[in-house]
C-alpha cells in the first residue's frame, strides 16, 4: 500500500494527484467526503484519477488515499433479486441509509455480511483433497429458483484442511481452510472478490449449440442467437429497444438474467422492479425476480461509474456461468458506455478519431463482447454468457462508429427500424437489415427439437418478404392493379407473414411469449397456406376469392387466438384451411371443365 497523496488539479470527473507508488487501476478515496475513484494513468509520481462521483467542492491540496486494490466485485449469495449501481453499491441499502437521493462519499458493501445462508458442503470433498480455483465447495439455496454453488476463488490452490459442516453461515464466517503449496493457509468464505476488468478464467471454450430462446418470433425463428453468443440491438429512439430488451429479460430460457441499465432512464428500471416480481418465469414457474439481477447507472448518475457498470455486469455474468448456469446479460445501452469512454478521453486530451471517440473504441468494444461464450468451467461443467447490447445510434444512423464497430464483432444483429415503429409494427426488427450467423447451428436444434423443415420454411418466409418488398416498389409506381395475380398473392401473403407472424405485442397476454412449437406451427400454417394458394392461383382461381376466405382472417389472428398450450387447436386450424383450399380447388376444376 502506498502513502497518502494530494490533489493537484480538479477538472470535472478527472483529478490529477501527487501519488507516488500507485498502480494503474488502483482504487483511491479523495478528499474530506471520501469520493471513490480509479487511477487511469501515471506520469512520474503523478496519477490521473477518474472519479465515480461528482467532484463538486473538491479542491487542490485535499488528501488522496490509495486502497490497494483494483475495482472489484463481490461475488457470493445475495446478489440475485438485487439492484446495484455501477460500482456495486446496493441501491436498496443506500436508500435505507441515505434517503431518496444518492449522496456522495457513501460506501456500502454489496453483499449483506450478516445474513445467514444455509450451506451444504460437497460430501465428495474430504480433508486432504486437492483444491483448485473453481472447485465447488458446496451450495446454498440463493433463491427458491436458483441454487448457488460456492466456488473456490480462481486463484486458490492447495490442500483442503477443513470444510464447514452443514449449517447456517454468514459471509464473515470461514467455510473452508486450504493450505497452499508454500504452506500458507487460505481462509475461504461464502464470497470472494474479483477485479471487474479481468475476464474470469475457464478451462476451455466450446461452440454454441443451442439457441437462446426469447419467445419472440422475429428473433428465435428468423434471427437466432445461440447461448454464449453475442448480439446487438441498434435502433433510433422510439424504435422499441428497451421494450425488446425487457421482453428478452422476461422470456429468455437462460437461467440467470443480468440487466444493466447503463446511462438510460430511471423509470425503465422502476418498471422492471415493479413488474418482474409479479411475473412468472415460464421455465421454473417462479417469480422472475428470483433469477434477475439489475445494475443501474441511470443517465443522470455520474458518467465514470457508467463506464464501470458494463464491466461489473459482465463479471457477475461470468461468476454465474462458472457455477454452470446459462446467463444472459443485457446492456442498455452500449452507446452510453462508449460516450462515457469518449468523455474521459476528451478530458485527457486524447486524439479523437471518429466523432470524437478515441482510437481504442473498437478494441474496447471487441474485448468486452469477447467475454461472451459457452465454456467448460474450471470444475468441468458447461456454462455460458450471452451478451446482448443495445446500441443507440445518433439520428438512427447505423454507419456511426459504435454501431459500425459493434456490427463487426457480434454474431446476431437485430436492427430496429423507425418506419416499422412509426406504423406501430412491434417488435420493429427489420427483416432486411438484421442478420444472424447462427442459423445453421440453430437449425440443428430446431430440426431435432421441433421440426425438420424449420430451416426450409424460414427461408421461404424470408424470400416471400423479400419479393414483396420488390413488388412494393412497383405498386408505388403504378398501383396494385398492375400486378399479376401471382404477384398479388405474394404481396398479400407477405402481409400475412408480417401481421400474423412477425408482429408480436408485448402487451398481449396470449402472444407476449411464444413457445418454439407455436412459433413453428404459425410459420408452417402461413407458409403452407401461401404454397397451397399458389397452386390455386396458378390454376386460375381469382386472388380476391381466396382473400375472401374467413380462414385467412383466422390465420392472421391465430397468434392471439391460440395459447402456447393449444397446439392441437392450432394444428386443427391448419387442417381446416388445407381442406377448405383443397375443396375450392376441386370446385374450380369442376367449373372449368
Amino acid at each position, binding site marked *: 500500500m502506498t502513502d497518502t497523496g494530494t490533489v*493537484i*488539479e*480538479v*477538472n*470535472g470527473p478527472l483529478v490529477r494527484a501527487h501519488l507516488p507508488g500507485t498502480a494503474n487501476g488502483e482504487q483511491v478515496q479523495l478528499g474530506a467526503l471520501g469520493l471513490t475513484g480509479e487511477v487511469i494513468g501515471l506520469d512520474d509520481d503523478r496519477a490521473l484519477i477518474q472519479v465515480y462521483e*461528482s*467532484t*463538486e*467542492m*473538491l*479542491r*487542490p*491540496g485535499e488528501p488522496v488515499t490509495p486502497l490497494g486494490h483494483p475495482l472489484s466485485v463481490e461475488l457470493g449469495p445475495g446478489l440475485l433479486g438485487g*439492484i446495484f449501481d455501477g460500482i456495486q453499491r446496493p*441501491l*436498496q441499502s*443506500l*436508500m435505507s441509509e*441515505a*434517503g*431518496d*437521493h*444518492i449522496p456522495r462519499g457513501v460506501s456500502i458493501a454489496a453483499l449483506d455480511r450478516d445474513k445467514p445462508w444455509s450451506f451444504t458442503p460437497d460430501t465428495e470433498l474430504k480433508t486432504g483433497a486437492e483444491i483448485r480455483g473453481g472447485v465447488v465447495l458446496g451450495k446454498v439455496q440463493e433463491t427458491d429458483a436458483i441454487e448457488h454453488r460456492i466456488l473456490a476463488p480462481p486463484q486458490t490452490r492447495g490442500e483442503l484442511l477443513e470444510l464447514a459442516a452443514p449449517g447456517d453461515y454468514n459471509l464473515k464466517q470461514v467455510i473452508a481452510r486450504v493450505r497452499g503449496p508454500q504452506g500458507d493457509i487460505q481462509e475461504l468464505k461464502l464470497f470472494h472478490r474479483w477485479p471487474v476488468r479481468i475476464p474470469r478464467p475457464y478451462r476451455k471454450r466450446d461452440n454454441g449449440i443451442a439457441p437462446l430462446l426469447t419467445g419472440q418470433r422475429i428473433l428465435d425463428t428468423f434471427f437466432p442467437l445461440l447461448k454464449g453468443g453475442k448480439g446487438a440491438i441498434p435502433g*433510433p*429512439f*422510439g424504435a422499441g429497444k428497451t421494450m425488446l430488451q425487457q421482453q428478452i429479460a422476461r422470456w429468455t430460457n437462460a437461467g440467470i438474467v443480468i440487466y444493466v441499465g447503463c*446511462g438510460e*432512464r*430511471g*423509470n425503465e*428500471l*422502476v*418498471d422492471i*422492479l415493479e413488474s418482474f416480481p409479479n411475473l412468472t418465469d415460464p421455465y421454473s414457474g417462479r417469480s422472475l425476480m428470483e433469477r434477475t439481477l439489475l445494475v*443501474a447507472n*441511470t*443517465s*443522470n*448518475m*455520474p*458518467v465514470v461509474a457508467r463506464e464501470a457498470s458494463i464491466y461489473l455486469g459482465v463479471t457477475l455474468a461470468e461468476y454465474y456461468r462458472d457455477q454452470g448456469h446459462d446467463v444472459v446479460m443485457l446492456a442498455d445501452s452500449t452507446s*452510453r458506455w462508449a*460516450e462515457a469512454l469518449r*468523455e474521459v478521453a*476528451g478530458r485527457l486530451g486524447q486524439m479523437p478519431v471518429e*466523432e*470524437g471517440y478515441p482510437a481504442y473504441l473498437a478494441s474496447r468494444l471487441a474485448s468486452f463482447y469477447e467475454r461472451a461464450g459457452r465454456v467448460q468451467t474450471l470444475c468441468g461443467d458447461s456454462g455460458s454468457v450471452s451478451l446482448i447490447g443495445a446500441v*443507440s445510434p*445518433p*439520428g438512427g*444512423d447505423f454507419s456511426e462508429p459504435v454501431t459500425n464497430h459493434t456490427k463487426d464483432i457480434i454474431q446476431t444483429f437485430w436492427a430496429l427500424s423507425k418506419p416499422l415503429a412509426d*406504423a*406501430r409494427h412491434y417488435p420493429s426488427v427489420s427483416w432486411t437489415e438484421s442478420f444472424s450467423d447462427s442459423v445453421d447451428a440453430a437449425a440443428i436444434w430446431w430440426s431435432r427439437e421441433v421440426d425438420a423443415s424449420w430451416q426450409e420454411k424460414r427461408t421461404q418466409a424470408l424470400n416471400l418478404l423479400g419479393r414483396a418488398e420488390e413488388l412494393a416498389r412497383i405498386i*408505388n409506381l403504378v*398501383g*396494385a*392493379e398492375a400486378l399479376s395475380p401471382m404477384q398479388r398473392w405474394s404481396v398479400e401473403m407477405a402481409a400475412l407473414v408480417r*401481421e400474423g407472424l412477425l408482429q408480436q405485442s408485448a*402487451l398481449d397476454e396470449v402472444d407476449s411469449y411464444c413457445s418454439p412449437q407455436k412459433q413453428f406451427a404459425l410459420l408452417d400454417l402461413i407458409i403452407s397456406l401461401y404454397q397451397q394458394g399458389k397452386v390455386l392461383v396458378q390454376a386460375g382461381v381469382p386472388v380476391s376469392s381466396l382473400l375472401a376466405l374467413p380462414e385467412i*382472417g383466422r390465420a392472421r389472428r391465430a397468434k392471439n387466438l391460440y395459447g402456447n398450450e393449444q397446439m392441437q387447436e392450432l394444428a386443427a386450424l391448419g387442417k381446416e384451411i388445407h381442406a377448405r383450399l383443397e375443396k375450392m380447388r376441386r370446385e374450380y376444376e369442376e367449373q372449368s371443365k
Partner: protein
Amino acid sequence: MREKEYRYASAAHNGLLFLKSVPGVAFGDRVGIRDQHGRQRNGQVILSSDEVVMIQVLEGTDDLNLDDTWVRFLEEPFEMPLSPDVLGRVFNGIGEPRDDRPPIISRLRRNVNGQPINPIARAYPREFIQTGISAIDGLNSLVRGQKLPIFTGSGLPHNKLVAQIVRQSKLLGEESRFVVVFAAMGVSYADAGFFRDDFESNGVLGNVAMFINLADDPPIERLILPRTAMTAAEYLAFDQDLHVLVVLTDMTYYAEALREVATAKGDVPTRKGYPGYLYSDLAEIYERAGRVRNRHGSITMVPVVSMPSDDITHPIPDLTGYITEGQIVLSRELHNQDLYPPVNIPPSLSRLMKDGIGKDDTREDHPRVASQLYAAYAKALEVRNLASIIGPDELPDLDRKYLQFADGFEQHFLAQGVDEDRSIVQTLNIAWELLSLLPGEVLSRVSEADLARYHHWDRTT
C-alpha cells in the same frame, strides 16, 4: 467565504476568466466578480489547480479590465433559496428576483445541481393526465411524472400548444390543478410575454414560478437556469406535496449555450460541434422529473425542443428523445394547412402511456383504439401517397375509404380549438366515428368485443 479578494486575472475571453496561483480553490465554487465599474458578476470554478483557476462568468467577460477585476471565492456552490413564496415570482437564472420585489429569504437553500434520485426510490408514473387535446390524450397520453417534450420548429404554434396543456391539464376525478415552474432560456421577449399574459388572464400567475433568461440576456446564465428551476420544482413537489408541471423552453437554446462554452474551453467537439457530454448534461436536467415513492407530489415535464431546420436527427432533439419518455412532434405540413394542433402522429410517442390508460384509468378500449388509429393512419398515409401518383380514381374501394379516414382523422380528431377541452371519452368517441369509416375486418388491432360495442359500420354504409 474567503475574506480575500483577488485581482490581476491573467486572461479573460469567451466568458472564461483565468487566475494564476490561487491555491486550494474548490471545483464548482461560486465566485463573485466585481468589474472596473463596480458591477457584480457571477462565476463558477470549472477547473482548479494550484497553477491556474478557470472561472466561467455567467454574464460573460466582455469589457472586463484585467487590472481592475476583483474576484472573491464564496466557498459554496450555487444555491437556490426555497420557500412556498417562490410561486408567483419571477427569477433570473441563478434565482435572483427579476420582478423588482425583494429576494426570497429562507434558511432552506439547496444546491442547484441537486442529487440523482436513487432509481429504486422512484415510483413508476401511471396516472393519466387529461390535457383535453385528442392528439395527446388519445394517442400519446401524458401521465403524472412523465417527461414528454414537444419537438417543434421555428414558426410552429408550440407556445399555443404548451399554454393549452398548462391550462387544461388535470387528473380525472381530482380537482387539484398543477402548479407551474416555467423556465425560459433564450426565448424572445414576445414569447415570454405570451406565457405571462396567458397565465395572468387565467388568473394562475400566483401558482407559477418563472425563471427567465431572454434572448438578449447573457447566454452562459442559461446553463444554470434549468438547474435552478428544477431545484424549485423538486422543493414544491417533494417538500410541499404539490403536483408540478415544468415547462422548459427552449432546450435548443440551452444546448447552444453549452456548445458556446464548450468551444471556448476547448472541449473535443462531436456531432455539429456539440461536446461529447451533451447527453449526460441534458439527462441531468430531464431526469429530475418523476415521482418518488412515499411522496405525494410529482414533477411532470414538458420541454420545448426546436428542431433546427425541422431535422429530428439533429443532436438536440435526437439526444432528448433518447432521454425523455416519448415526444410530441409538430408538423410544418399540417401547420401550413392551418390545422391546429399540427401534431405529426407517426413519429410522436408516449412511452408511459401503456400503464396509464385502459379499464381503470380511461376506458377499456383505449389501448387498442390508439394502436388501431396509428395503424390505420399509417396505412392511410401510404394510400394517400399512392393516390398522389396514380390518382384517387384508380384506387380500389377499400383504399378510397382509407383516404376518407385520413381526411376525417386530421379534420375531426387532430384538429381542435385552442380553448376546446375534450374529455377522454369524447376523444375516444370521435376515434370510433372515424374507425367506423373502415370495415371491421381490417381493424385487426381492436377486439371483437370492441367492434361489437363501438363500431357502427352498418350505419355508415
